């Protein structure tokens, strides 16, 4: 197995490390499904995955998943139920960590997956929230994964589908009645952003191997904050890469 890794593999490895052992993780589509499997089979053997389609699991599926509803994700599930029951657990604060995809994110972690341009005649019509806004509002903390491009990391999203830390003022979420803690990280193809506790603006916490802060600045629309202790993101381990590659589509 090659130790060289792709940007996507780096993102999945970072996402997997966000999952702590024994946590209940709301697993969305695509990369987070793989991240859950990696975490489960490496450092978080007791992490459970919750899927809005109506599933709970404590083991990774044994074969490739195109979606969370594919048959291998159902076989061996701990619970097959209605979506509204899964949402009940999240509304109660039982979901420790959620993953959300997005087309655009801003410096306060707000996500747009609905409209670029005016909703009545958008420049780009995106697919919509799915469960994204629910996760953003109700999970204890959440993480988004995104290709690092200027058109995706924007000063302010034109439409807030899934609220992050709002306008970045202290305690914005609590003041607006949002139950969950909001985004804790933005994982991109170049770096990892994190947020101060209580909300506010994203800062660069680590830069992926082979990339530079200059690249990050260049590919971000806003003037990025850099953590004083910024470091290099630890590359995917052999164990992580093995799990990731076992779950890529043939």
């Amino acid at each position, binding site marked *: 197995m090659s130790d060289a890794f792709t940007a996507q593999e780096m993102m999945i490895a970072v996402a997997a490390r966000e999952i702590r052992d024994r946590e209940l993780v709301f697993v969305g589509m695509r990369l987070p499904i793989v991240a859950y499997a990696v975490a489960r089979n490496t450092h978080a053997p007791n992490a459970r995955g919750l899927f809005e*389609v109506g599933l709970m699991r404590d083991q990774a599926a044994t074969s490739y998943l195109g*979606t969370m*509803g594919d048959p291998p994700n159902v076989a061996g599930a701990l619970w097959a139920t209605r979506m509204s029951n899964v*949402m009940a657990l999240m509304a109660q604060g039982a979901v420790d960590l959620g993953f959300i995809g997005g087309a655009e994110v801003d410096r306060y972690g707000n996500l747009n997956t609905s409209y670029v341009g005016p909703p009545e005649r958008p420049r780009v*019509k995106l*697919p919509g*929230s799915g*469960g994204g806004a*629910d996760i953003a509002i109700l999970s204890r903390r959440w993480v988004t994964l995104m290709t690092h491009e200027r058109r995706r990391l924007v000063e302010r999203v034109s439409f807030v*589908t899934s609220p992050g830390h709002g306008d970045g003022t202290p305690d914005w979420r609590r003041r607006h009645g949002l139950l969950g803690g909001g985004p804790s990280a933005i994982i991109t193809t170049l770096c990892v952003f994190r947020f101060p506790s209580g909300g506010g603006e994203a800062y660069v916490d680590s830069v992926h191997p082979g990339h530079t802060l200059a690249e990050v600045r260049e590919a971000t629309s806003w003037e990025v904050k850099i953590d004083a202790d910024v470091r290099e993101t630890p590359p995917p381990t052999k164990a992580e890469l093995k799990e990731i590659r076992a779950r890529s589509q043939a």
Partner: protein
Amino acid sequence: MTMAQAIDAFVADGASVALGTGLEPLIPFAAGHELIRQRRQDLELVGPISDSLFDELIGAGCVRRITAAWVGNVSEGLGHCYRRSAEQGVPRSIEIHDHTNFSISMALWAAAWNVPYLPARTLLGSDILGTNPNIREVDGLVHISAVRPDVTILHVQRCDAQGRAHAWGPLGISEEAGLAAERVIIACEELVDAAVTLSDPNRIVLPETKVVAVVHEPGGAHPSPVQGFWKRDHVLDNAYAAESRTREGYEAWLKRWVLDVPDRQAYMTMVDVDSIRITGNRPSEPVNFADE
């Protein structure tokens, strides 16, 4: 009853139709294709995530309004027909009532319990509050108005002729969509004897009093998966995503897979069924309903 008969009899132009309530599995594609063949107009489509079914129907010009959490295709995200419609009005403009997965479920439970709205803790801080007239903030909660489909169409694994449907695996919002609807059409992989369905009344998804048609439609959910019967057909998922990128590509796809196909039986002859058929057996342990 055939799917053509069921759609003809129970889905009118202008109807509100809930489809794809399983989110990703059990999507009633056969019913959607029949809606297109019968040139239904001005439909309101209700659902959470619907694989690419809503995108296909939008492209075919059948849709007046989308009341859903997500419209795209599961292979690559963006729904190209949805984009063309919203961005360019091609083939027609549609009204969009944005939801989240949680809020569309609550909207259907509101209709099921016959209340005008249910309150929820989601959507606070989201701009969806400003674009969907049926969702509003009240005293720090969000009130989600009831959504009452005229008809809900479910694909299930097995059903009897009297409408007692067994579905298994994750259920998404199928139960509330069926209870909320005026009437329900069931498509099933296997048409079974009532002795099978009534052997396990807990697995019956909906009261038979809601069901107006049962269609025996093997493969009717293809390319979405059906636990115990069919894997997802990634190849055809990907093909739709690629071909629908242009209007011409979509029209060629539509001709080949829908318009030139008389029914689901003919459609299934065009699919590489051996690559997606589930042949294993992983049976549920029986339970004992004996009363003496």
